[in-house]
C-alpha cells in the first residue's frame, strides 16, 4: 500500500532535451506544420478565397438565396433537436451503463461506438430499410424531416454518452452519500450534486454532437429524399451547387458551415479549459 497517490512529476522536459533540443524541435514542428498546411490549411484557405472572390455582394446573394436559407434553417433546427435528444438519452444511457448492472452490459457498451465504426451511407441505408417504404414494422418516415432527425440521432449517439461516462466513473459517490446523510432526497442529490458535476461532460458531448449534426451527409442522402426547400440539409445543398456548376455559391454557404465549425471547436476548447481550471481550484 502506498502512502501517497501522487503521480509521476513532470520535470521540465525541455531541460533534459537541451542538447540539440531546440534544433530538433524546430525540425519536428516544421514537418508537422508543413504537412498540416498542405493537407488541411491550404484547401480551407482556397475555400475561403473562393467564397469571397466575387465580392461581398455575391457572397451575400449566395447565402441569402431562399433555398440556401431554408437548408440552413432546417439543418440548424434539426441539429438542435437532436442535441436535446442526445443530452437526455445520452445522459440516461451513460448513467445506466455506469451505475446499473445487467447481463450483456459490456456488449451494449461496445455497441455505443457503432456509429463511429459504421460508414454513414450504410447507416442511411439501414435506417431506410427499417423505417422506410419497405419497413417490416410498418413505420415509413422516409423523405420526411423525421427521417433527418432519426439519421442524425444515429450518427451523434456516441458523443454525449462517451463524454459523460468517464465523468460518472470518476464521480466520488461519497459526495452523494454525504448529501443523503444530510437529509437530501434522491432527486435533490441528483439535481444539486451529480448534475453540476456532469454538466461540463454533457456540454462538451453536446457541442461535439452539434458539430457532427451540422455537417452530416452520408446518412442523409438516401433517407431524407433531399427535397429542396423541405428536406434538403446544407451539406446536400452545397453538393448540389457544386454539381450544378456553381462552386462560388457553394463555397459561400460552405464558409458559413466552416464558421460554425470553428465556433464549436472554440467552445469545446473553452469547456476543456474551464473543466481543468475547476479541478485545479
Amino acid at each position, binding site marked *: 500500500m502506498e502512502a501517497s497517490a501522487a503521480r509521476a512529476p513532470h520535470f521540465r522536459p525541455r531541460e533534459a532535451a537541451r542538447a540539440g533540443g531546440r534544433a530538433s524541435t524546430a525540425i519536428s514542428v516544421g514537418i508537422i506544420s508543413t504537412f498540416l498546411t498542405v493537407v488541411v490549411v491550404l484547401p480551407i484557405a482556397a475555400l475561403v478565397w473562393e467564397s469571397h472572390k466575387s465580392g461581398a455582394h455575391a457572397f451575400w446573394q449566395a447565402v441569402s438565396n431562399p433555398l440556401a436559407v431554408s437548408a440552413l434553417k432546417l439543418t440548424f433546427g434539426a441539429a438542435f433537436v437532436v442535441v436535446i435528444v442526445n443530452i437526455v438519452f445520452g445522459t440516461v444511457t451513460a448513467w*445506466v451503463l455506469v451505475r446499473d448492472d445487467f447481463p450483456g452490459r459490456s456488449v451494449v457498451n461496445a455497441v455505443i461506438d457503432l456509429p463511429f465504426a459504421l460508414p454513414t451511407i450504410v447507416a442511411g441505408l439501414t435506417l431506410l430499410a427499417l423505417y422506410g417504404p419497405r419497413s417490416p414494422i410498418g413505420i415509413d418516415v422516409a423523405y420526411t424531416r423525421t427521417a433527418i432527425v432519426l439519421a442524425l440521432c444515429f450518427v451523434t449517439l456516441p458523443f454525449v454518452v462517451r463524454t459523460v461516462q468517464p465523468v460518472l466513473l470518476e464521480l466520488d459517490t461519497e459526495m452523494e452519500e454525504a448529501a443523503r446523510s444530510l437529509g437530501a432526497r434522491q432527486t435533490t442529490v441528483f439535481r444539486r450534486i451529480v448534475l453540476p458535476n456532469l454538466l461540463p461532460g454533457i456540454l462538451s458531448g453536446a457541442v461535439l454532437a452539434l458539430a457532427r449534426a*451540422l455537417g452530416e451527409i*452520408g446518412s442523409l442522402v438516401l433517407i431524407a429524399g433531399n427535397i429542396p426547400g423541405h428536406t434538403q440539409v446544407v451539406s446536400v445543398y452545397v453538393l448540389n451547387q457544386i454539381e450544378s456548376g456553381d462552386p462560388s455559391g457553394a463555397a459561400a454557404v460552405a464558409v458559413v458551415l466552416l464558421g460554425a465549425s470553428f465556433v464549436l471547436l472554440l467552445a469545446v476548447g473553452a469547456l476543456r479549459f474551464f473543466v481543468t481550471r475547476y479541478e485545479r481550484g
Partner: protein
Amino acid sequence: MAKRLGLRAVALGYLLVVLLAPLVMIFYRTFENGLKPVWEALSDPNTVHAFEITLIATAIAVPVNTVFGVLCALAIVRRRFRGKGLLNAFIDLPLALSPVVVGLALFLLYGRTGWFGSWFTAHGIQVLFALPAIVLATIFVSVPFVAREVIPTLRELGNEQEQAAATLGATRWQRFWRITLPSIRWAVIYGVVLTTARCLGEYGAVAVVSGRVEGQTETATLRVEGYTLNFNTSGAYAVSVVLAATAVFVLVLMTLIKPREAV
C-alpha cells in the same frame, strides 16, 4: 428499484430503436433472397474495383496519418513552441467539419483553375476526379485520430521513464525506440483502428472530388449510393453488409484495445 428498471428500459429502448434494429436489418435484408444476388453484386468488376479504390486510399492514409499523429503528439506534449493552440485547432478541424465542405475545399484547390490544380494540369497530372483526389480527401478527414489518442496518453506518462533511461546510458534514439514508442503503442493502435474505420467509411468528401465514374473512381461507399439510386437494392445491401461486417470487426477491436490504452 422501479426507477432503476425504468431508466434501464429507456436507455435500452432508445438504443434498440436507433442503433440495433437497423444494424440487424442490414444483415437480414441482404440475405433475404439468398446468397446469389449478394455474390453477383460482389463479384461485379465495378464493385471489386470500388473496394480496391477504398482499400488503396485507406492503405495510404492510415500510415501517413499515424506517423503524423505520433510526431504531432510528441511535439505538442514534450516540446515548447509557439502556436500550439493553432496547431491543435487545425488538427481537430476535420472532426468538426462537414465532409462536403472538405470535398469542396479540395475541389477548389486542385481544380483546373485552383492554386495547386493549375500546376498539376500544366504538368499533365490529373488529381481531381481521379485516385489522387480520393486519397487526399481520405487523408484530410482522418487526420485527427491518432494524434488525439496519443496526446493524452503521452501526457499521463510524463517523461520520467525517459529520464531514467538516460541515466542508464540510453541515447536519444534508444530512448525513443525502447521507451517512448512501446509506452504509447496501445494508444497508437487504437488510433489506427479509428483512422481505418473513418477511411473505409468516408463518403461526403469523396462524393465531391471523385467524379463517381463507375469502375474507375468509385469507392465502396459511393458504390452503395450508386446501386441504391439505380434501384439495385440487393447490390446496395451486398456492399453494405461487407462494410457493416468490417464495422463490427472494428468495434470488436476497439472494445478489446480500449482498456489497454489506460496504462
